[in-house]
Each structure stands twice: as C-alpha cells, then as structure tokens.
C-alpha cells in the first residue's frame, strides 16, 4: 500500500529537505539516502534543483519504502525547512500530522500557524556558530547537522553514517572530524529535546542486497565504455552533461593504455549540437562506435543531420536526456516530451529507431544495445531517458556483464570480401532484410562509394530518376520492419482476467506499477505493458488487440506516446485513454490512480 493512502509507517515515509542551491546540501542528502539504503530499506531520492549555480531554492526528497515503491510519493512526512525564502511553501506542503524541522536560532513563528503538524525547532545556526570558527564551514556544517537530527528522529544506524563519512572524507581528515562533530551535535540535540524516534522510523530489513544506488547518466556512460565506443562528440546541455563527464572519467581510468599512457578514446567538445552530430556521423562512417549525449534543444539542432544519417545509412548513437520543453523550457525539470520529435526528426520521410529505458539499470543495457542496433541497422539510434532517470539516484539491481559479449558490427565488408566482388554496390539489398552491406574508407580501392544526402540509387550513384529514388526509400521501409524484430520487446504483465490495460514508457514505470498494485488491492485489475523500443513490435499490436480499454500513461501534455501508437499500430482511438503528467516533477502513482478512477467513474455514469 502506498503511504499516500495511509500515512507514514515504519519504512514507509518521505522526507523533504528544502535548501539553498550551492550550500553543500547535496552530500548531506546523499548520505541520508545512502544510510537508509545500507540499512536494507528500498529508497529513492529526487532532486528538485534550479537552473542556477548558487542562491535559488532547491529541494531533495527521500522516500523510504519497505514495499519497494520507488516513484515519487507525492506527500511529505518530514520537512527540513532550511531555506527562509521557501518556509511558507514548505510549511504548507507538509502532510497533516507531519513533522517540520526548522532552524530555531531566529524566531519564525508567524509562519508556523498550522496546528495539525508537529514543529521541531533546532537552533542549527547557533550550535554551528558556537562550535565552528569559519564562516563557510558554519554554513556547510549546518547542513550536515540535520543528518544527525534526522538520524535520531528516524532511528537510523549511526555506525552506517559514520562509515559513509569515513568513505567520503578518507583523504581529508580535518573535514571528517568537523562533519562527524556536526552530526553528533545534531543527533545529541534531537535526543535531548525531542521524543525519539518518531512514530514512524527506519527499521533495518534486507531488501537492498545486490542493488546499487546510481543515476542513469552514469550507467549510460558506462554502457558506452563497455560497448566499445571510441569517439564521443558533444555540446554541454543540461541535463545530459554528466553522461560525457562520466564517460571521460571512466575512460581516463579504464581506457588508458597501461604501457604508453595513450587514450584509447577521443572526446570532442563541439561548437554546437549540429557539429556534435556531424562528428558522430563522420566517425560512424569511418567505423568507430561514436555517440553524442544531448537534450531536446539539441535534438532540434541535430535534426538535419539525423535525416542525413537515416538516408545515407550511417550508424550513430544519441542519448536524449529529456527535460521540460518547449523551447528552453525548464532545463532542470523532467518530462517525456521528445518522443515525437525524436521518432520523426528531420524533413522528408524519416523514422528513427528509439530505445526507452525505464531506469538506470536498463539505461546501461540499452546503451550497449543501441550501438549494436545502430551498426546492424546502419542508422541513428536514439536512447531516450529523462532528467529523472539521468540525474537522480535510483536503486537498481547490480549491473551484469558477460565477458563473452562481442559487438555486432553489422554488415561491414572486409578487404578480402570486397576484392572478391565483381563490383561493390553500396545500397543493394542482398539479404531481403533491407540492410545493404557497407565498406569502410581505407579498406580496399574497390570498396569506394560516394555518401550523399541527395537522391541516390542502389549502386550509390546520384539520381533524380523516379524509380531509382523510390527503390531506395522503399527499401528503407523494409529495414524499418527488420528493426521491429531487433529492438527490445515490450515488458508485459498481463492476465486473462481483465480487458483493461496500461501502456507506459520509460520513467513512468514505477508510478504505474505502484498504481497497479494499489488499484489491484481496491479490486481493479489492470494489465501492464511498457514499450522499450520503437518501432513497436508485434507484441504491442497483440496487446492492443486483446484489450478493450488502455490507459496510456506518459509525461507530456500532448499524449505523444498515444499519438505514436495511433500512427504506428491499428487501433481505435477511443480505446486509448491518455493519463498525463507534465508539470516538470517526476510522475506520481496518485496521478495514475486518479486518472483511472475518473475514467472508471465516467464509464459508470454513462
């Protein structure tokens, strides 16, 4: 059962910390989350941060869920209000019976007019001023001190917190002592002045074994390194930047030649996204696995090259870490609103292969698979994640790697194969799967061909001939059919008992699964399908055919996934009911539940 329905319990509560950007709260928040994780309690952390370096409000939300529900909970049971600017708001959003922790060094009582909450004042600034000399450390220690307060209130394992501190500051003993002191001071104050623990607390269980806490930009970067990508080209853009930062960090460590110190990779920070895409195509044409991380505005800029890559059939891998659009939108807020712009990017008849991982774990595997698909299908492949997956730490199963894995380089002719041909024809489909063999520059003089975005025939020659042109674009459709069989199949949980179904995508997964569990307890049984790739496979059509009413849950205003299903499958539009969430914060189970209940009520009224 979700806490939104029943209120907090042991291992079922949400803590929100309101702070000011740039005050070092990130490490305190990460420590709290990690401590719960190490206590064996499933946990998720959502960071709501501004498009700013210092000074604007920021919130961090930690949900502990012994049941393993890891979507955003939508309620706040404990609020740590560290930002005077947002006190009023933070105080207002606390659930009834919730706990408000604030810095009581200065009186703020006029704002705290609610009588249905518990107010716990901790003189954080005063304690810091009495115990720390430097101005900067007073600010930083104030933030680490609330870790101690919460540890006491929630009965967290202090040894785990101590271990985390030791790991974090193992190279800086002076910082270690100061941080430990701050935590101890906060812990002692809470023990002395409040009744600890609260009626709900953290109880050690064993539900996080063989799991890690990691964000999707990190796992995407790992996937690129493991897939053997050697060329990365990019233009920095929130929220995708840490993909390349991490790729670089990992490569610096694991891709340096141990003897020569040479870098077995090349990262180019391009002048813009257009150039980044051009670089990826140039490298792909030349036989390197190459990729670019970007976000929605970057996809807009790359669109001309995406159409070029589609038509000239060059492998390329893109990561679109979606943020709130349109235009600049809200760069530090999440959405799934680039589905259409990625699927059909560029002028003319273009359709692209897409992958939709639902969490950081899947992002790792999809990253590797994207390179295989791009080279097998000789086309750009876009991995769509979003800010929620990319930048928040998610609890994931351990990532696995099979050392027997060999990259699928697709149909690339060797020098011997080329030499044996009477003539090489770049765009001739010998196998009937729509994929023609290619050659890499430098391999053999007989393998030369001309890559051009203008009309070309199956021999690779320039053409304006109607029939020759049509033969090429029709073959690309055959290739798209082949792609349907190669992209990862949808995840389906279905029983014969119900004709109601969900279809969802990417990071909406957890909220839908939680909603499904809650609804099932209330007697409403709904089947589940999550698309993992585009073009949609046969299993998606079969699922649609076998359900009467399907709730399409996604995080954008215009029901883009639903539109794509209407375009790409045979389905009565009335059958697909949109359930939408698009305010920039990660989707809630409650949004899904409300959407279904409203639709069911409408059905009964009719």
């Amino acid at each position: 059962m979700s806490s939104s329905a029943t209120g907090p319990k042991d291992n079922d509560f949400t803590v929100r910390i309101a702070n000011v950007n740039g005050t070092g709260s990130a490490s305190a928040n990460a420590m709290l989350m990690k401590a719960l994780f190490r206590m064996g309690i499933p946990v998720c952390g959502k960071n709501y941060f501004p498009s700013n370096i210092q000074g604007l409000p920021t919130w961090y939300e930690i949900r502990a869920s012994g049941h393993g529900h890891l979507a955003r909970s939508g309620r706040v049971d404990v609020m740590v209000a560290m930002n005077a600017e947002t006190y009023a708001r933070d105080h207002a959003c606390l659930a009834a019976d919730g706990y408000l922790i604030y810095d009581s060094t200065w009186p703020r009582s006029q704002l705290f007019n609610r009588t249905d909450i518990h107010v716990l004042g901790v003189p954080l600034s005063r304690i810091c001023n009495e115990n720390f000399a430097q101005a900067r450390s007073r600010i930083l220690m104030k933030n680490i001190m609330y870790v101690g307060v919460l540890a006491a209130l929630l009965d967290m394992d202090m040894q785990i917190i101590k271990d985390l501190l030791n790991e974090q500051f193992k190279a800086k003993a002076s910082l270690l002592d100061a941080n430990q002191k701050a935590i101890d001071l906060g812990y002692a104050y809470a023990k002395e002045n409040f009744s600890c623990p609260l009626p709900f607390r953290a109880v050690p269980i064993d539900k996080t074994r063989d799991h890690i806490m990691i964000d999707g930009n990190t796992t995407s970067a790992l996937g690129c390194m493991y897939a053997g990508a050697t060329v990365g080209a990019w233009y920095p853009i929130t929220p995708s930047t840490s993909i390349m930062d991490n790729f670089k960090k990992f490569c610096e460590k694991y891709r340096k030649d141990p003897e020569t110190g040479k870098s077995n990779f090349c990262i180019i920070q391009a002048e813009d996204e257009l150039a980044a895409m051009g670089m990826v195509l140039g490298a792909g044409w030349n036989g390197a696995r190459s990729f670019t991380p970007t976000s929605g505005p970057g996809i807009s800029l790359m669109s001309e090259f995406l159409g070029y890559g589609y038509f000239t059939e060059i492998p390329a891998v893109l990561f679109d870490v979606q943020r709130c659009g349109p235009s600049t939108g809200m760069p530090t807020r999440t959405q799934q609103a680039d589905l259409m712009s990625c699927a059909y990017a560029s002028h003319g008849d273009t359709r692209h292969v897409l992958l939709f991982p639902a969490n950081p774990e899947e992002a790792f595997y999809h990253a590797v698979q994207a390179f295989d698909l791009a080279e097998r299908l000789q086309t750009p492949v876009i991995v769509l994640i979003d800010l929620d997956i990319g930048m928040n730490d998610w609890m994931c199963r351990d990532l696995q790697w099979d050392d027997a894995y060999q990259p699928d380089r697709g149909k690339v002719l060797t020098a011997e194969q080329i030499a044996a041909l009477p003539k090489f024809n770049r765009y001739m489909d010998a196998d009937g799967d729509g994929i023609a063999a290619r050659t890499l520059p430098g391999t053999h003089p007989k393998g030369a061909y001309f890559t051009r975005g203008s009309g070309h025939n199956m021999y690779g020659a320039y053409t304006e001939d109607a029939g020759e042109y049509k033969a090429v674009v029709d073959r690309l459709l055959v290739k798209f059919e082949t792609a349907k069989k190669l992209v990862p199949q949808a995840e389906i949980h279905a029983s014969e008992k119900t004709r109601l179904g969900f279809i969802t995508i990417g990071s909406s997964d957890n909220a839908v699964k939680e909603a499904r569990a809650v609804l099932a307890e209330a007697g409403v049984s709904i089947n589940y399908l999550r698309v993992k790739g585009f073009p949609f496979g046969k299993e998606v059509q079969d699922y649609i055919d076998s359900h009467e009413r399907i709730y399409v849950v996604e995080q954008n205003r215009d029901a883009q996934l639903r539109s794509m299903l209407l375009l790409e499958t045979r389905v009565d539009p009335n059958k697909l009911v949109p359930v939408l969430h698009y305010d920039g914060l990660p989707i809630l189970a409650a949004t899904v539940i409300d959407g279904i209940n409203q639709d069911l009520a409408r059905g009964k009224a009719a």
Partner: protein
Amino acid sequence: MSYIGKPKVAHPGLPRNELNLTVRDYEGGMSTLCAGCGHDSITGAITQAIFELSIPPHRLAKLSGIGCSSKTPAYFASASHGFNTVHGRMPSVVSGANAANKDLHYIGVSGDGDSLSIGLGQFMHAVRRNLNMLYIIENNGVYGLTKGQFSASADIGSTAKKGEANQQPPIDPVLTLLSMGATFIARSFSGDREQLVTLIKAGLKHRGLAMIDVISPCVTFNNHEGSTKSYEFTREHAHAANYPDFVPPAKEIRAEYAAGQAMPVQMHDGSRIVLRKADGAYDPTDSVAAYQYIHKHRAAGEIVTGLIYIDETKPDMHELANTPPEALATLPFARLCPGKKTLASIQSRYR
C-alpha cells in the same frame, strides 16, 4: 558540362608514380559544372597533386558540403570514399572521421557560401582544433546553384551580373585564419595550376589544418566586368608573395635558387617546401608581417597568392587528445571493454 566521357584507358606513355599508377587512376566522374568553371581546374590540380604524391586512392577520403564547389569530390579519385555532407557542415564530419581514423588523408572541398556563411562556425572550429586535413575553399564570391546571389566573400563594390553592387565588406578566409592561429594558410588562383598543385601537395603533407583559398571564377554568374572574382580581374591583380616548390623526403633541394631568394620550410614528415620568394622580405613564418603584407597589397588592389603562413610545430587534434598511434576505429574490442570484474569493482562505489 560535357556529355562525352573520356574512355578509361591510359596511354602507355603516361608517367607512372611510385604505386605504378597513372594520373588517370586518380580521376573521378565526369564534371556536371558549367564549361570553363574554375572549380574544374582545381579538380585537375587536386588530381595531379595526389597522383604526384603517390597517395593510394583508397587511403584518401574526400568530403564536402553543399554547393557547386561541393560537387567536385565526385570528379576526382573514384577509388576514394567520398562524403557529400549537409550545407556548411563538412568540417564536423571530417572531425569525427579523422577522430576515428587518423591514418587516412582528408581533403575537404568547400565554397565561399559553404565555409564563410552557413558554415563559418564549423570552419573556424576545425581550424581551432587544428584538424589534420587539407581544406580547400573554391571561392567565387557568388551563389551559383541558386543563380547569382552575392556570397560573404564578395568585395564591396563588386557587381552582380544584373548590375547590383555589393555593399557589405567581405570575409577574407586568409586574414581570418591568420588572426586565429591557423597553421597553414595559402591562397591561389584556379588559373595558376603550377602554384596550386604545389600548394595542394604541401597542404596534404602539413600536419594540421591546411587551408587554401582558391579564387575560382564562376563563368556563368561572376565573370563579367565589375566582378572582382573574374578570370580577367584575378589575372590582372594577383600578386604572388612566393612560388612554392614541393620536395619529397630524402630528395635534394634543387640548386637553382639564388641565395636569399629561396626559403626551405621543413614539413613534419621530412619533406620540404621551397619557396622562391617574389618579394625578398616576405617571411611566411611571421604572422604579423603576413597580415601587414596582405593589407598593404589589398590597399593597392592586389590579391596576394602563395604560401601566406605556415607553422609546423603546433599539435594537431590527435596529439592534443593523446590518442594511440593506431586508428581508434581499428582497436580490438578487448582493448576497449574493461570486462566483468572491473564492472563489479566500479559498482562498489555505488553501494
């Protein structure tokens, strides 16, 4: 354009290069440009230069953007991979291609619209990363394929075919690159084959980005009286700062230059360019002097040609990126994937 292709048979008496190939083996498809187009002369010069350098055709990659100029890679080296990119974006594609395989020779062919308008940003950034390539701008001051609009290299007062005069100042790729710290800057004229062939050879031997701005008259839209990029105007106003000769590695410098008049420049691979200096004072390793020299002659209505500036000491993109000697695209997977054990140890940090 001509509709009669040359038969692909070489005269037995044609000279052969070190690979036992004739110049015919470096030719491409038949040109579809207007008869007399300057670009076709440049194509001829490129063909001659790569033949003389004995570059194996399949070890050459030829890339371009969009426009009349950018069609020309189809007209030389049929046995080389060609890449006609999108408008103004050839530099990024060469950047990626070169990152993947440093072992090929890269020739990028662009035009004044492609490089100085839509692609100015990419052009500048390719220069900035000192991408190892030969970058040829076929510069005619006009948009030919869309029938005669001024380009960004048109001079103030130069008139279009219908008489309209250009009022905006030109972007001069030579002056722009001098200010950017480019490492090989040259200018030539499509009608001066001897100078052009030598500059192309030197440019291909240069480590880093070698840019040759080639004035290439458009016979259809910009070869009239009043144009400053016509055959007649360029022939009259070209001023050669030097006459380059290319000397392959291990060959003696010919001794016919008077002392003080010949300036050898050592290239990265041991070959040399010997500059027969038209003007005894000109030093192509002094960028400040080069800048002044061009301005002085421009004030006199003259277009300076020759090797304007060269610096063989600067690192190229790969040296800066510290890549291995082999092409990245050819590295075996075992050297790229850290494997299962490492993945387990990486994950210990995320618990």
